[in-house]
């Protein structure tokens, strides 16, 4: 039982990171029906941005850890948003309305471009991040096994929850969120009602990237290391999470992310750590066979 609860905590932490990335996939898919394959690499770029900003803030300006992290979070979200805005503007917008596979191939190219760009400008070696919040808060003890929750796990879950709340507020209550949901339903009608569709789509990319940037900060904090090739696997898993939750659905993305995180940690704890990715992908395949639209996805009704 103690081990189970410990794994539950670890799984939820990992799941929050996947959920944050998954929202970027699901929002972009919801609004323009495109798999933004480069999103995992945008997440990786954001981790590098966070790492560099953290070093700049702590070594050049001598900030303390907590104000530095806050600064990294805000600036990281802005800069990653700018990255994704640029990517959308240059690689996807010209292909909008074109043949359906063209943006997908462009996104795959962009993914290769981003990871190799980081390899060229930051070097191919792993970057170790200075450890932060290493203390562990013990919760209870059972048969000599102490269940604890790390301070960084608390930080990750709290920051994720706060930002998801903020994000939910933006999507549900602000004019921007309304415009975004309107474009999702019917772009032509939204345009007729005076919504700038291009701008809304750009902002969707910026929002998705901002959440990926949060995930990037959390990722380097949790794992303490980052490499230029670290975008692909979390990206695929987050996309898996988005599909599992029902692509296009925002709560679905979060639930899917938490589920994937839980499956991965539970599988590593109880079965075999080598096959954890196999487990995550197999569950994706099985879910889709029985629930083709994911957990919370709307069934696709085709009019003939």
């Amino acid at each position, binding site marked *: 039982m103690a081990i189970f609860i410990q794994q539950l905590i670890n799984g939820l932490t990992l799941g929050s990171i996947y959920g944050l990335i998954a929202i970027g996939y699901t929002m972009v*898919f919801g609004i323009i029906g495109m798999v933004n394959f480069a999103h995992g690499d945008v997440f990786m770029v954001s981790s590098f941005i966070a790492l*560099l900003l953290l070093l700049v803030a702590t070594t*050049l300006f001598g900030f303390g850890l907590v104000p530095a992290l806050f600064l990294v979070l805000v600036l990281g979200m802005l800069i990653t948003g700018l990255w994704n805005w640029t990517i959308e503007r240059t690689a996807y917008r010209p292909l909008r309305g074109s043949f359906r596979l063209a943006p997908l*191939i462009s996104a795959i190219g962009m*993914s*290769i471009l981003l990871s190799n760009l980081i390899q060229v400008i930051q070097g191919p070696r792993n970057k*170790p991040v200075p450890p932060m919040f290493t203390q562990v808060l013990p919760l209870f003890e059972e048969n000599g096994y102490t269940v604890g929750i790390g301070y960084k796990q608390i930080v990750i879950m709290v920051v994720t929850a706060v930002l998801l709340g903020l994000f939910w507020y933006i999507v549900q209550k602000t004019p921007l969120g309304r415009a975004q949901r309107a474009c999702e339903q019917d772009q032509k009608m939204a345009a007729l009602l005076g919504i700038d569709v291009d701008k809304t789509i750009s902002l969707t990319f910026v929002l998705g990237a901002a959440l990926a940037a949060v995930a990037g900060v959390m990722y380097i904090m949790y794992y303490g290391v980052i490499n230029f090739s670290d975008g692909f696997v979390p990206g695929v898993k987050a996309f898996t999470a988005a599909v599992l939750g029902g692509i296009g659905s925002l709560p679905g993305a979060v639930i899917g992310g938490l589920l994937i995180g839980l499956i991965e940690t539970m599988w590593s704890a109880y079965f075999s750590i080598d096959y954890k990715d196999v487990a995550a992908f197999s569950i994706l395949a099985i879910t889709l066979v029985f629930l083709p639209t994911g957990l919370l996805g709307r069934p696709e009704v085709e009019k003939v």
Partner: protein
Amino acid sequence: MTDTTHSPSPDAFNLKQALKDAGFAGMVTFGLCVPIVAFRAEQDMANKLVLQQRWWMALVITGLVVVARFLFSLHQHSRRNEHGPQTSAGAAGVLALIKPYLAPLGFGFITIYPLMMLAMHGPGGSIKWIDNFGIQILIYVMLGWGLNIVVGLAGLLDLGYVAFYAVGAYSYALIATKVIPQTFPFLGVWAFWICLPISGLLAALWGILLGFPVLRLRGDYLAIVTLAFGEIIRLVLINWVDFSNGYAGLSSIPRPSFFGIPFNASDTGFAAVFGLEFSPIYRTIFLYYVILVLSLMTAYVTLKLRRLPVGRAWEALREDEIACRSLGINTTITKLTAFAIGAMFGGFAGCFFAARQGFISPESFVFLESAQILAIVVLGGMGSLFGVVVASIALVGGIEILRELDFLKEVFGPTFDPSQYRMLVFGVAMVLMMLWKPRGLISTRDPSVIYKERKAISGSMVQEGHG
């Protein structure tokens, strides 16, 4: 500034707007560069990260983008003011003139390519040209043609095609290194020829196995599940060490023989039997023709299948699944045959790959390979066989040429390593090619069914597979 009275078009070049655009692009680029280019985190001796500042690099990149954006505005302006595409009409005329000879000429060139290279570079120097360019491109042509059946004809988006390539390669490697020497030692020299059909059949079987669960899925769901299958197969190959030897891979895989005569220096070897001086080049040339025949077989089968009911069902499925069902086409069988036949050619290619390399490991079957094959199919213009060839030459040949850029070391100094820019250039090229030709290079195709006269169909009239 352009003088509007003399300009043929009233559309004057808006210098102010162009400068504004360029300045904006520069600002954005600088913003993008701020942490990620201007600083570099490097480990010191104590394995701690220290910052290096490289503001000059950020400024250089920003400057380049400003200039590029300005030139782009100029280019767009001059394109707007052009009157009719005279130059391209001339080129089209020339193309129409040589078009009937293009296929035999191209085929002739491909057939004599290794001999040409042998004559030009000698036995030692030509291996690189035949192997790295000829064989490498032909493998991708074959994979492209195989995937084309699934994506281009049946319209099923498959992001895990490399799985079947891996199944083919591992089937050959395992049978030839473990089964044949122990159970059928007398078959030793024939290993490749016996395993080739087996690998294809095993890959086809896997195609059916993986095809079953995804039959109900459509479009992007299908794409992600096939991607997941590709990754599962690779992860199993990595982790099941007893079976596949994990990361270390399988080595000393037997090379193909010339129909029973091995390519070695012994008295019964190829060179001795035909009275030639021993040289590794004969095997390379032979491998070139093997993969050439295999790919031509793929193309031939594809062309024939398009005329058969199953091929027509594939294309009908790509256009409209519901209409297909209402016309009584069995979509299950149609999809499974597409998966199986596509996978079979992937298996053949994998078997050939293992035999050519003599060594395989899971590293060769990463997602990037699937992406590259899919890029070849899409860039070629989905469904066009000739387009796949052009796209393979452009992408694979391009990557290989980027290996040859050692002379840049003399320009940028010895620390400059051109090979690390290889995949970066590949990614940029993929994006730019999509922006330039979203429909692929060859976007017209021959109709499968002709009523009275042959008409070319524009690619934009063909559906792109909703899965």
